């Protein structure tokens, strides 16, 4: 907070240029503008809100004065990115989960895929973009491809490691009580692997979110403008305030999802198992 305040003060006193580096107030302006609130906190000698409309009446009439909140660029971008994330993450979890399970169950699969997946994890997900562009073209499939490739190997590895920590006593107890075949998997191994699953979802999500943002930045799909698109547009118009604002939104969304969804799920599971402290 102190840093932000001194930054803002320095900005006002020295008189930096908006297009060199934005002050926090400009970022706030840009952020609010993207949700349809027009402010001018960044302009000196101004109360900030509401921002005076441009003098040019014709331009004013040309564009709609009030956009509905759900029609504003930021809300749209978040929902498009969200839909992509949900779809891609679901596929990624299904694929990564299956492979992780196979790796845990069969040593041969693990020996074959384990080192490969570790290698894939060192590859930044954006590096999949050129391949996706060539294979799928600039479209939704390409974005999903990058998202999935960026996250499923991490999900597999975390799940496999988690499954390996299941005490062998649980399957033995299950067998003793007559749980055989699929019943052993469904009633014993699946619940026993819940802590592993929760951990693997959490890791997978952060990988997926990062991959998606990277992919959207480069795949400029005109029809559905995601958060990455907004960021890239900011760059193209040299709108630094917009760039910083979108970056903040990305961090906040990633953090909220991790803190409010995955961390809570993980904590619940751990409490149930008595693993928490």
């Amino acid at each position: 907070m102190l840093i932000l305040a001194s930054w803002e003060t320095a900005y006002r006193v020295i008189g930096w240029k908006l297009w060199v580096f934005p002050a926090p107030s400009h970022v706030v302006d840009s952020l609010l503008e993207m949700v349809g609130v027009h402010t001018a906190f960044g302009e000196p000698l101004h109360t900030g809100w509401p921002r005076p409309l441009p003098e040019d009446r014709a331009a004013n009439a040309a564009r709609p004065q009030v956009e509905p909140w759900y029609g504003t660029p930021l809300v749209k971008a978040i929902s498009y990115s969200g839909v992509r994330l949900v779809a891609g993450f679901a596929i990624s979890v299904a694929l990564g989960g299956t492979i992780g399970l196979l790796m845990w169950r069969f040593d041969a699969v693990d020996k074959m895929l384990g080192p490969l997946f570790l290698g894939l994890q060192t590859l930044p997900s954006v590096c999949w973009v050129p391949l996706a562009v060539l294979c799928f073209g600039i479209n939704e499939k390409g974005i999903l491809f990058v998202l999935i490739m960026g996250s499923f190997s991490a999900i597999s590895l975390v799940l496999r490691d988690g499954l390996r920590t299941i005490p062998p006593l649980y399957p033995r107890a299950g067998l003793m009580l007559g749980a055989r075949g699929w019943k052993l998997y469904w009633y014993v191994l699946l619940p026993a692997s819940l802590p592993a699953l929760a951990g693997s979802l959490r890791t997978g999500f952060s990988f997926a979110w990062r991959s998606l943002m990277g992919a959207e930045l480069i795949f400029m799909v005109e029809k559905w403008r995601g958060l990455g698109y907004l960021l890239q547009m900011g760059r193209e118009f040299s709108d630094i305030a917009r760039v910083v604002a979108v970056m903040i939104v990305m961090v906040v969304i990633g953090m909220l999802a991790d803190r409010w969804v995955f961390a809570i799920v993980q904590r619940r599971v751990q409490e149930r198992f008595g693993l928490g402290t």
Partner: protein
Amino acid sequence: MRAPATPILTKSAPEPPAPRAERPVAIPTWARPAPGTTTGRGQLVLSGISKSFGGTSARALRDVSITCAPGEFVVVVGPSGCGKSTLLNVAAGMITPDSGTVTLDGQTADGPGPDRAMVFQDHGLFPWLTAAQNIEFGLKMAGVPRSEREGRVEDALRLVHLVPKRDKLIHELSGGMKQRVSIARALVMNPAVLLMDEPFAALDAQTRTLLHEQLQELWCQTHKTILFVTHSVGEAVRLADRIIVLHAHPGRIRREVQVSLPHPRNFDSSDINQLVKLVRKEIEDEVNRVNAEMAETYWKPQSPADLGADSGLMGDGI
């Protein structure tokens, strides 16, 4: 004339031990022995069991044969590493022996199953289920209808005196309670044989004594065949009808001791303690010898007098 001084301390004849408080626990019908026979089923025969791990050099068990009569309480004692847990796992069907067979009531038993219910040392209860759900688990797997399951779980909880804890998660229970849930989980399946793998080894002494009494009570009520493995001689003598001492490297039967004390035993009564001491000494010698053979040196703690003999001379040489 003054009244005779009332003695401060009167030495009266020792009172007979108070009868243990009768707890009104009715044995549920499904756990009662078959009508007409006190010992319905549960004849467990292990014949010629051999098992080796990691090549032929380390033989965990060599040609071990044990016959448990229906309703008999058999305890296997031995030093650590003598293969007693392996033996129990073979009986449970968790480990396939290299040779030898396991028969239960005349039928060959292979693979684990609820007819030979096992109580593990680390309880092996499922942490994602409550106490009652853990007990219910085996019935659910066996496809017992829900209405019947509830009643049987209730009965089992009553048998181990854990009705108030029915909805607790496993990590909310104490060590002794966990083992009682584990016993209830085994008993609710109405197994022919109860296999117990050092079930009380991880408990404190007080809890262990309490559970000994409760297990004895349960056994007297249900007359299950019990094959119990422990490294504690005291535990073996308290509980067993028959004690089997295992020898290590390779594991085979060294000796069998019949404990012909009547059940239920009052662990505190002196004449029983006398007998326990005798048997205990006999077995401890055996275990010590096995231990000594394992370590290739015969090590026995020195008597306190020997240890203290030099203490008076401390500092003499200065």
